[in-house]
């Protein structure tokens, strides 16, 4: 297993998808069971990876490298370092949870679970791929299942949301394709190998780097989503079924920032320095504030969470752009933390939607008395999202802001004050839905059930544990990020402090 573990993690879900398609249509429990069964081994492997990952090195680990199309120098090249392993862990965990959360799906179950497993495989592939071509293929393969999952099993405006998501992402990815080809032909000898491309980054002219950087960035920014490319996200999130919203917010958004860290940073360091110091930081700040303000204006519970995602992803961009050890560590930690927190939030929205069949924030009231356990879980998730000390998101946001303080005091103050906005919309929502007089329409609503709690427990544990003791994740990512920071700073010969990381 050691060398091929990543390959298994990528392709087992794919095998699962094919197996699910071969099952009889009416065997509902068999289909659910099979789909769940194929997400368990990747989860176990993820735990194994976590235990055996060498935290002292920034090198790629668990590498597999096989020529695919030798005449074009395309390889099947996968491996993980500190940046990707957190995302692989997150993907494995959320895929398993979301399969469980999808048990309520009735319509065309076979197709649903097959598409879901296909999506799972593609997501794993994106985070493991170290060949640009392979990365691109996995990146695009995600689109198809996502399109159908939103389009067939989504809400009333699902067709619009699905095609909007598809078109936005496609615009980004075709620009990425051109940039990828340009990089391939610019490097001598031509290669798609991301590590090779990074090692030659010194030889790329600044003008070329800037153009390629922008091409790639647009592709990734749409995924994050950075303002002004964010408008697909509220639609997609609102219309998607619960489990798919979780995957969208928990995993897919991270691909944008992951792509920037994996490709833009090491391969185009000079351009990264140019753009990080104004474009990325400005977009990050704007995302934080704008997302929070939009969230405040929403009356749809799910849309509110969607906009809060935009706001929280702003911290990731902000941290990345600071180019400090604290900031960038905070950014990757925030990617992981947001993945867990927002997953909880979407699962919780799903719980209430399944019961009341609407998500109008003003349409509830006093749920705390009717569904006390559900309210408790929501409170945990809300406080985590607000960045309450003691819960995971606090650490990452503080790290990000600490990183920003040295170079951008003004913007850091703006970003930090946005925490007040976050607390504002979260608490206000809390008040409108859970507190106050009970809406008699919903007096009989059953409380959160065992299956739903089962999906929340692992996330809740992670949120609490990482809130007091973030080292499990920070130790994983630190070596790779210090190295990345040195590469970017060193290649462009800008002396940046790469002081020891901030580990509380």
């Amino acid at each position: 297993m050691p060398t091929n573990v990543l390959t298994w993690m990528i392709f087992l879900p794919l095998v699962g998808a094919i197996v699910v398609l071969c099952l009889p249509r009416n065997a509902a429990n068999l289909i659910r069971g099979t789909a769940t069964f194929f997400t368990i081994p990747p989860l176990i492997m993820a735990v194994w990876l976590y235990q055996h990952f060498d935290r002292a090195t920034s090198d790629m680990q668990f590498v597999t490298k096989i020529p695919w199309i030798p005449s074009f120098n395309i390889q099947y090249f996968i491996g993980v370092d500190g940046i990707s392993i957190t995302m692989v862990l997150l993907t494995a965990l959320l895929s398993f949870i979301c399969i469980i959360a999808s048990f309520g799906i009735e319509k065309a179950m076979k197709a649903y679970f097959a598409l879901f497993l296909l999506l799972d495989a593609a997501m794993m592939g994106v985070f493991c791929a170290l060949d640009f071509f392979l990365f691109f293929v996995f990146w695009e393969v995600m689109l198809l299942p996502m399109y159908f999952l939103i389009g067939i099993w989504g809400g009333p405006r699902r067709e619009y949301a699905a095609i909007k998501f598809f078109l936005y992402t496609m615009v980004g990815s075709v620009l990425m394709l051109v940039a990828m080809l340009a990089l391939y032909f610019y490097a001598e000898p031509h290669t798609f190998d991301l590590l090779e491309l990074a090692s030659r980054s010194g030889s790329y002219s600044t003008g070329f780097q800037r153009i390629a950087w922008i091409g790639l960035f647009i592709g990734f920014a749409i995924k994050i989503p950075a303002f002004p490319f964010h408008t697909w996200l509220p639609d997609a999130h609102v219309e998607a079924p619960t489990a798919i919203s979780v995957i969208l917010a928990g995993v897919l958004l991270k691909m944008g920032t992951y792509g920037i860290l994996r490709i833009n940073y090491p391969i185009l360091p000079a351009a990264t320095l140019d753009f990080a110091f104004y474009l990325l930081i400005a977009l990050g700040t704007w995302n934080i504030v704008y997302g929070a303000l939009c969230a405040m204006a929403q009356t749809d519970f799910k849309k509110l969470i969607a906009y809060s995602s935009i706001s929280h992803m702003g911290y990731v961009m902000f941290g990345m752009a600071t180019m400090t050890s604290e900031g960038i560590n905070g950014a990757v930690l925030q990617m992981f933390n947001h993945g867990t927190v927002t997953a909880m939030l979407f699962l919780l929205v799903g719980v209430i939607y399944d019961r009341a069949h609407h998500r109008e924030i003003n349409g509830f009231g006093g749920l705390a008395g009717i569904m006390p356990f559900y309210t408790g879980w929501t409170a945990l998730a809300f406080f985590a999202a607000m960045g309450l000390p003691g819960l995971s998101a606090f650490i990452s946001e503080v790290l990000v802001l600490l990183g920003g303080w040295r170079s951008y005091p003004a913007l850091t103050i703006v970003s930090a004050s946005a925490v007040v906005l976050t607390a504002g919309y979260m608490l206000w929502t809390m008040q409108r839905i859970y507190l106050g007089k009970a809406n008699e329409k919903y007096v009989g609503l059953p409380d959160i059930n065992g299956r739903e709690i089962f999906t929340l427990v692992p996330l809740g544990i992670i949120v609490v544990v990482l809130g007091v003791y973030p080292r499990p994740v920070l130790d994983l990512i630190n070596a790779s990020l210090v190295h990345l920071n040195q590469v970017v700073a060193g290649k462009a010969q800008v002396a940046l402090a790469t002081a020891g990381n901030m580990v509380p």
Partner: protein
Amino acid sequence: MEPSALGNVASLAYSLPEIVLGAAVVLLFLLDLVVTRKETLGDVALVTLALVVVLSARLLWGDSAALYNGAVVVDGFALFFKLLLALAAFATVWMSLGSREIQKNGTGEYWAVLLASTLGLLFMASSTNLLMAYLALEFVSLTSYVLSGFMRHSRRASEASLKYLIYGGVASGTMIYGMSWVYGLAGSLDFRAIHTALMSGQGAALPLYVALLLTLAGLGYKVAAFPFHMWAPDVYQGAPIPVTAFLAVGSKAAGFALMIRFFFTAMAQSVGAGVYQLVGGVDWSQLILVLSMVTMTFGNLAAVAQQGNVKRLLAYSSIAHAGYMLMGFAVLNDDGLRAMLFYLTVYYLMNLGAFVVVMLVANSTGREDLAGYRGLAWRGGALPAVAMAIFLFSLTGLPPLAGFVGKFYLFAAVVEKQLYLLAVVGVLNSVVSLVYYARIVRTMFLEQPTGGEGVVAVDWHNGLLLGLLTIGTLVLGVAWGPLIDFAGRSTHFLAY
């Protein structure tokens, strides 16, 4: 040492595919008089084409040669296209045997005319003389007019046929006028002689430019490139579905074959390492570049506007694809040609596949409009709907499907030449194409049947073809190595 052209008798050994095809045409006309069950004639045509494929493939292991005193050649390039065209015809006959439209109008000459058209296509792919090229092209055109108007009792088909004839007449008239200019400037109709004359500085640039433009009209008409595309929507819509597929795949491929050979052997000069250089002072690669951008943009935008007939939509999509393929033409090197050959093969699979699904729906419900596809996946037609989705996404150029690989190589050739504008226009066009391809997918999957659309059944005959094309589209999306190598080997022209 340059080999010289073979004489007429010595050439016969290299012409077995054409001889078999020609004999089969005559045989079919005769059999038509005695056989009452007309499907038998289709079976004969099918066997003939299988034989043609085998005979053409056999020539791959032989030498290249110039035949009939230099009128046509057998080389890697010609054989690649002969195989592709024979396979296209094979699939068309297979489709025709399972088509309700063809069965209803069951006459024997259909098969003979189809084979005759194929014969013309094979000559288009191998001719090295303008006169021969013109004759082959006209032969294809005339047979295509007949095929597209084959449903004699359909007004729409008659209209299509007539439009095709009129546009075709204008285009071929323009082309032969252009050829006469070429003859006047170079003193010969032979590609090699034209090349030699241009190399020696004969012929002024401006008249040559005019001559090329005029010639391009005829060729652009065959591949349905803007602004010579006007016939395509009406003809695609009016012709029987197998014939439409044949025109979209076969005619287009042969048009490209002739176009590539004429421009690359007569109007350009190989300077080694797979790179070509223009001769005669005419920058036709710029012209093709503009043509490519305009064609794909027009085709895609027009397709977006199509809401009704799926065949008509696919006609505009085929115009757009002609634009994509022209990208490989404009870069003037072997990488571009290889990408074009590869794309044509992939295009054959996915476009033909889409037409098979169109035919299945039309067979069962008699409908070709988009509303006829509503909820196809949810009313028993899950398999054709899934296959159609695969073909359409492949046409869009999404991995891991063959269409992506085809586009990838085209864009790679363009980026390698640093034609970034063309590359960006090309990729944005792919996004535009997603709008209308996804519209069909949406109608099939995301919308619920409202009742009254009818049940779409798949019989084993059409299902087998559909399955093969689907598997081909999927397999070439992940394991395209052998095909791209074959395409790469087929980019060399015989310099005799």
